[in-house]
């Protein structure tokens, strides 16, 4: 062994307890014979222990990349390089997994081998961004590691002011509630944006996330500029015999409490014969009753997506949730998918042309107003975009008749 293990009295306290310990993993790597990863990890453990002692971080960014791409490697140089020279460079490669985070073991083992050879042996599955995070790589190893991962059929994820790696729920692969093919949509969009992922030139980042229903298991609503959620347009499917069985199982009072009373729009009633009275016109497709009664209730059959736009985290104007941009759109045929990809490109182009530096889509819409954004995209106004109409009269309405005429025309042409 070329170097001694650094003392880590504080980190060692994170080795006890029932939950798997990342510290134990780091130490396992550091103690793994003469492998290059062992050397890096000794330095890393030393610096991390130092951080725990001083309660400060010591990484600085920088510019490290691979040939042909302008993003995807997160450079980390240590401010404590003198003290911990082995981990003075500790870059991360962001690699995009298959949608839904599916793996076979052959692939995973191959990734492990590559990372043991070229990196620290530490892999996060997955980063908050949805990437496989190959963490801890010296600058000269970045290109060879990347070459091997790319040859396996994987591509680099996004970073900086470009399109970012996406995430999606398990979707139709293993969920009866998925209202569209989240995995296919994810792949269709991301693989059409590889240029904007690898060569970022936007005002700021742009994220897509995909969830199959309103349960939003991919956390798209607040964590993506463009959240694509499954929904349906017709009546939900009810198996009244299974409803009766559920009423029997929970008891009448509890069924009222857990199902009837919790419907956010009072769309449910309990008939005296223990069947369900559904007012589909009041239903907002929130999934609650379907979640509680998985056998009895299901989304309707006319399924598709709704698109929310503008979700983001705190900087610069505070957290924003996405808001409805497209209330419903079928996503079944190749044309449907092409339409979605085209819309995504329009959104990206408008963002590129109109956002200020370091401004997210949600902030841009907040600044210019939803109506201008819609006009820019050539999308039509829909009542589902609002919680409620305006409550203040500070608006100039001298184009009212013209706008009313447009609405009537749309309604008539839709009726035809």
């Amino acid at each position, binding site marked *: 062994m070329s170097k001694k293990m650094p003392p880590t009295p504080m980190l060692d306290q994170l080795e006890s307890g029932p939950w798997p310990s990342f510290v134990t993993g780091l130490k396992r790597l550091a103690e793994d014979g003469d492998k290059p990863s062992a050397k890096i990890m000794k330095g890393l453990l030393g610096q991390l222990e130092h951080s725990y002692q001083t309660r400060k971080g010591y990484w600085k960014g920088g510019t490290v990349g691979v040939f042909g791409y302008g993003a995807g490697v997160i450079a980390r140089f240590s401010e404590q390089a003198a003290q911990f020279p082995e981990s003075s460079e500790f870059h991360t490669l962001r690699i995009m997994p298959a949608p839904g985070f599916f793996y076979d073991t052959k692939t995973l083992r191959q990734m492990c081998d590559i990372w043991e050879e070229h990196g620290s042996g530490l892999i996060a599955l997955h980063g908050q961004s949805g990437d496989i995070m190959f963490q801890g790589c010296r600058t000269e190893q970045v290109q060879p590691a990347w070459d091997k991962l790319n040859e396996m059929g994987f591509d680099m994820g996004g970073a900086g002011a470009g399109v970012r790696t996406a995430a999606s729920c398990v979707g139709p692969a293993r969920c009866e509630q998925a209202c569209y093919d989240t995995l296919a949509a994810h792949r269709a969009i991301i693989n059409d944006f590889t240029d904007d992922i690898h060569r970022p030139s936007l005002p700021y980042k742009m994220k897509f996330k995909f969830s199959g229903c309103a349960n939003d298991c991919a956390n798209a609503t607040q964590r993506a500029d463009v959240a694509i959620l499954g929904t349906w347009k017709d009546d939900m499917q009810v198996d009244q015999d299974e409803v009766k069985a559920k009423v029997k199982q929970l008891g009448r009072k509890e069924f009222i409490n857990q199902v009837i009373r919790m419907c956010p729009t009072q769309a449910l009633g309990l008939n005296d014969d223990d069947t369900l009275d559904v007012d589909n016109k009041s239903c907002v497709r929130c999934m609650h009753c379907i979640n509680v009664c998985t056998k009895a209730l299901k989304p309707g059959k006319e399924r598709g997506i709704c698109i929310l736009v503008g979700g983001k985290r705190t900087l610069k104007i505070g957290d924003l949730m996405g808001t409805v941009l497209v209330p419903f759109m079928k996503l079944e045929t190749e044309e449907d998918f092409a339409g979605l990809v085209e819309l995504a490109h329009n959104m990206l182009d408008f963002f590129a042309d109109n956002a200020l530096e370091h401004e997210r889509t949600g902030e841009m819409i907040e600044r210019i107003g939803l109506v201008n954004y819609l006009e820019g995209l050539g999308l039509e106004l829909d009542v589902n975009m609002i919680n409620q*109409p305006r*409550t203040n009269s*500070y608006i100039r309405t001298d184009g009212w008749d013209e706008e009313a005429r447009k609405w009537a025309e749309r309604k008539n042409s839709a009726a035809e």
Partner: protein
Amino acid sequence: MSELRRPVECGVPDSKQFMHPALVRNYGQWAFHDRPRPGVLRHVSDSGEAVYTVKAGTQRQMDVHTIRALCDIADTFCDGHVRFTVRSSVEFMTTDEAKVAPLIERLEKDGFPVGGTGNSVGFISHTQGWLHCDIPGTDASGVVKALMDELVDEFKSEEMPNRVKITTSCCQINCGGQGDIAINVQHTKPPVINHALVAGVCERPAVIARCPVAAIRPALVDGKPSLEVDEKKCVCCGACYPPCPPMQINDPVHSKIAIWVGGKHSSTRSKPMFHKLVAAGLPNNAPRWPEVAEVVKKILAVYKADARAWERMGEWIERIGWPRFFELTELPFTKYHVDNWRGGRANLNASAHLHF
């Protein structure tokens, strides 16, 4: 000239001196109430005594002859006591159940519709209008008379899902307050400025400060200090007009009527709600405003048919969703409905809650 009389600064008088004796007797001792029929309330006290209240509509702006007619009725049936409601209905109280039917008959005969109780359309609260206000865009009294003529059956029955409070306001200041339906003036053109008068009449910095969108700036016009309006910024709210009458905002053609729905002051069930814009651009069509009446009646008809028991207008719409509201009322939905100020994001739909 004799010396002027110094006022007695007495404040408001004690109500009990005017109150029906049965109310004084049972003050704070009421057990419950019910409604034997539309227009009539029965309050029962802990002692078992019952008081019947018969409620009737008035024109609010009353000539002394009308008031005396009401007094005659109160003297005949109610020992000379009478009360008005916040919405200008008149209430007659008696402990004698036998007097209720003749009292109703007399009121109806004398032209005072009996109703306004329970889940009815109440009398429309309204502002002064052309009759007395110094900044009115329309005549609220006229709009209200025209509408109540059409809605009187809903005043006299209790067939609405919940009570319906309609308000009118003659300008955008919204003196009428929040309503299930609010009928307010909405200006659509910037003020027309009489520059010759501004310097003499208006305190210019105060006028500039009143503008909610900072569209007014000082200007020299024909050598005189005046004000000018950035017409691109102006939202035509008329806030500059009261402090500066030479900034004429009212216009026979471009001062329109807008309809707002779903406001309420009460905290019953849902928290208090602001009313929301649903229709604008309606002509200020005196003397009977038929276009306004048409929209109001349509909204009421749809509400009556579709809402559930106890849902106030705004609660009903929240349940069925605004898409369905616009579908059922056949009103156009436009970009003007979308709140476009920076904080207006609260009015956007940040969820996958959708109505189809």
